[in-house]
């Protein structure tokens, strides 16, 4: 019989006692998993969207900033246009290293029943540094005429098509040459087409008639060293009244503000829950230790040292903490699955957290739950392990 086995037996043979201590830990860990996951999902969605853009400043038609950000961050399909002439004007601003543009075409209807629409985006492969860099990293080359890259969600929904298959887009056959890795952003449900292919469709009178060749949707700018996105943004907004500009760090600001407010609420909730859990564990342990006073005295009478008793009770606390934390991780994830889908703030954000991040969140929650259980047990356990055996027996009678 080892101390560990004794601790395990004490936990298993007293399920009510064990569940009474484990419950606050389960609640705390569930809350930690849920809040950290929601926070991570929103945060990473914004981050990934901004990373994907690759530019320092984004320019959209005046009044379309919200729609553009909703498209980028929240996957809400949208179309908005400004004159292509703006591009030339912006080029003249000092400090611009690279400039490119995208045209957000009307959405492409799903191929069949139950298949959602996808957004078509055209880009100029000669100037592009957003899409081309993804293709270069995966294919090692630029997108050629008659080729398309497809977002992961859009590709999944075209169930019948495979890479190298032809897809009819805007009345023209295109070869699918690449699938973008999932980002959790609108780009997952997007088909990227070369601008010259689209223009050809327009010239041929294919179904892209509604596209005006003199319009573009969004301009991305990369700056030279020594220029800050904020100063260039200010300059653009001062000089061009018909556009809105947003520096890289400000993209998704609305959502970031909401996330920050949400985090404050989460922090207060977690702090209160932690305090409550600590108090509950401590109270339960004090009661349990009191109930087991005689048992502790007997164990000491049988030759257990103070450290044996301390280790036994702390081991029990840690094991219950681990048990509560594991159940909490499972219930937190179930809560996530069931409830986070109903939060509009998460609609369209990345469903899957990166595995490493997921483990990190799980580890933090696990550590938090186990530590709270151990800390809560500490005072009553120290008290009982310091008592004289006879004193413990008498108090337990």
């Amino acid at each position, binding site marked *: *019989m080892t101390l560990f086995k*004794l601790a395990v*037996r004490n936990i298993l043979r007293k399920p009510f006692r064990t569940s009474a201590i484990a419950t606050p830990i389960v609640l705390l860990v569930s809350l930690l998993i849920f809040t950290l996951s929601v926070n991570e999902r929103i945060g990473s969605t914004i981050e990934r969207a901004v990373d994907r853009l690759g530019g320092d400043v984004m320019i959209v038609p005046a009044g379309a900033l919200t729609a553009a950000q909703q498209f980028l961050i929240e996957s809400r399909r949208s179309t908005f246009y400004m004159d292509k002439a703006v591009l030339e004007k912006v080029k003249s601003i000092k400090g611009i290293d690279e400039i490119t543009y995208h045209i957000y075409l009307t959405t492409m209807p799903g191929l069949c029943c139950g298949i959602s629409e996808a957004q078509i985006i055209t880009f100029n492969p000669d100037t592009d540094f957003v899409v081309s860099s993804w293709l270069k990293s995966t294919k090692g080359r630029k997108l050629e005429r008659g080729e398309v890259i497809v977002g992961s969600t859009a590709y999944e929904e075209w169930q019948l098509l495979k890479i190298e298959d032809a897809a009819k887009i805007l009345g023209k056959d295109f070869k699918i040459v690449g699938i973008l890795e999932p980002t959790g952003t609108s780009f997952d449900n997007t088909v990227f087409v070369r601008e010259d292919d689209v223009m050809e469709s327009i010239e041929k009178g294919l179904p892209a008639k509604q596209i005006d060749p003199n319009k573009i949707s969004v301009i991305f700018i990369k700056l030279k060293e020594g220029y800050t996105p904020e100063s260039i943004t200010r300059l653009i907004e001062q000089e061009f009244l018909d556009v809105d500009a947003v520096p890289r760090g400000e993209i998704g600001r609305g959502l970031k503000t909401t996330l920050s407010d949400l985090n404050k609420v989460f922090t207060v909730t977690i702090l209160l829950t932690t305090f409550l859990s600590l108090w509950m564990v401590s109270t339960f342990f004090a009661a349990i230790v009191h109930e087991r006073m005689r048992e502790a005295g007997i164990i*000491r*009478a049988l*030759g*257990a040292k103070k450290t*044996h008793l301390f280790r036994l009770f702390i081991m029990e606390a840690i094991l219950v903490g681990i048990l509560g934390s594991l159940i909490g991780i499972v219930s937190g994830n179930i809560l996530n699955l069931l409830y986070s889908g109903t939060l509009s703030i998460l609609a369209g954000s990345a469903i899957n957290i990166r595995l490493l991040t997921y483990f990190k969140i799980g580890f933090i929650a696990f550590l938090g739950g186990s530590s709270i259980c151990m800390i809560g047990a500490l005072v009553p356990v120290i008290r009982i392990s310091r008592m004289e055996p006879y004193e413990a*027996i008498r108090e337990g009678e």
Partner: protein
Amino acid sequence: MIDVRNLTKIYKTGDKAIKAVDSVSLKVEKGEFVSIVGHSGSGKSTLLSLIGGLTRPNSGTVIIDDIDLYSINDDTLSEFRNKKINFIFQFSSLISTLNALENVLLPMTFGGSKDNVCPNAVKLLDMVGLIDKVDAYPSQLSGGQQRRVAIARALMNDPEIILADEPTGDLDEETEAEIMELFKKLNKEKKITFIFITHSIELAKQTGRQLRMSNGKLTVLEAGAPCAPAS
């Protein structure tokens, strides 16, 4: 040999100080079977716990085999208890989450030889007549059976001394007699020193020496005679 000298234990409750054990001196030879009788609150249990190193006295010494129990540190005292002394209590002293066999094995968790412990524990349970209750939990055992398991546990580390605090207290006469016989047998065959606390003068008479505890003082029990000092 157990040598108790001028042992005093005072409990303080508020402003009041109660002398539970008052300058008690006692010598018990190896293999002796000593009983202590006395009313509730006379200080018997406190004296037994002082002899067993379960609580520190206010003054006096307890020397067992030339070791002064209260001059050694708590860890050494615990080791000493584990190896030399064992206790049988009046109440059910079994751990409710462990079965009979595991309860008997419990002292080995805190020290002692780890060889052959399980067969030895089974043998002890057989000796106390509970071989068929090896897997039974305390809640599945009667009061007498629980006490027998406690006796088997007390023998697990081959102790030289057993301190029994009213071990037959709430048992029926038949079980009481059986347990008493077991104690006598252990005392005779294994030469275990017994200090046995009881309310019953009849039971005390079955032991080698009878002492009386009254108001914290220990005296020799002599039927119909005034009390004389214990040692």
